[in-house]
């Protein structure tokens, strides 16, 4: 009896180490953001973000390659702090949110680069087009929060060409690519 209990405890301890934990991105408390930046005329960076999205990931610090992540974005929540520009970004010229109300990223493979750095391969669907991308990510930290939960947070960046996603509006030679910066804190389920 004693032995089986011990074995059970050991098993539980092992499994919690071996099997990745599932996290839900904390959008309720807004400890996550999906930001973008694009050059304006080649003279400066224009930044913006998507206010409405959700995501989940599984992560095991011992076996980071087993991690998976998926993120859904409501494209009409684009916010660059300028109503007229946002209206334009939502229009047919750019995101065409009426036709393509969501964008999403689903990972296909994760490579550990040592330390807390990860290379996340996956497919980004945007403007109705799905293309493989690579997100260079880094774990910022993980641990217990003060309210009884457990959290892990990551930061990642990638760069996409608008033309790859069928967004052909010409913003000039310096503004053909958009950089995406994701900060995602997940709460362990």
């Amino acid at each position: 009896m004693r032995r089986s209990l011990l074995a059970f405890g050991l098993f539980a301890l092992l499994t919690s180490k071996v099997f990745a934990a599932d996290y839900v991105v904390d959008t309720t408390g807004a400890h996550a953001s999906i930001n973008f930046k694009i050059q304006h005329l080649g003279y400066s960076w224009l930044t913006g973000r998507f206010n409405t999205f959700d995501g989940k990931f599984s992560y095991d610090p011992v076996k980071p390659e087993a991690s998976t992540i998926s993120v859904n974005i409501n494209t009409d929540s684009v916010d660059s702090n300028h109503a007229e520009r946002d209206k334009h970004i939502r229009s047919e010229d750019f995101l065409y949110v009426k036709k393509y109300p969501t964008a999403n990223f689903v990972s296909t493979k994760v490579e550990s680069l040592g330390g807390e750095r990860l290379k996340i391969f996956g497919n980004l669907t945007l403007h109705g087009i799905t293309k493989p991308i690579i997100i260079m990510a880094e774990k910022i930290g993980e641990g217990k929060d003060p309210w009884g939960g457990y959290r892990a947070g990551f930061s990642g960046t990638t760069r996409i060409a608008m033309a790859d996603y069928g967004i052909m509006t010409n913003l000039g030679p310096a503004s053909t690519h958009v950089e995406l910066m994701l900060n995602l804190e997940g709460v362990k389920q």
Partner: protein
Amino acid sequence: MLRNSSQQYGWLSILFHWFSAVIVIGMFALGWWMVDLNYYSPWYTDAPHYHKSVGILLIALTTARIAWKVSQTSPEAIGNKWEKKGAKVAHVLLYLLIFTMFFSGYLISTADNRGIEVFNWFTLDSIGRLFEDQADTAGLVHEYLAYTLIGLASLHALAAFKHHFINNDTTLVRMLTLKQQKEQK
């Protein structure tokens, strides 16, 4: 003759009318053209700036115009009962459409608390975001009402031509000249 009479429009009313006509048609053309401008067009920022500036001045002009109109008599409409009724309804609608165009346009540009710069002369402040999707919804309203306004204005012009060429009455002429017209019929 500054003021209107029961037969004739005074010159201020005539000026208000034609000035408004030119601005409304010009604003429609400008708006229609500017929404498709290329990002690198020299007009990309100036055209909307003028469109917004003129729009705000037009609403001031229209407010003055209505104040002037209600402060005095207007020439009697010419035509049968339903023509008179129809003309009245169309005129009120034209005024309403001009005001709705102003409000919808204003709501697009001020949805993020930014005010509207009028010819670098003064800024009309934003009253903030009043509803969800304000810029998009107001934009659609602005677009469809613009077509409605131009459609109704065209009907208004056709009706004036009908009065002039078919009925041979003074409806059009009294909006063009101060010369006292002879009584018709």
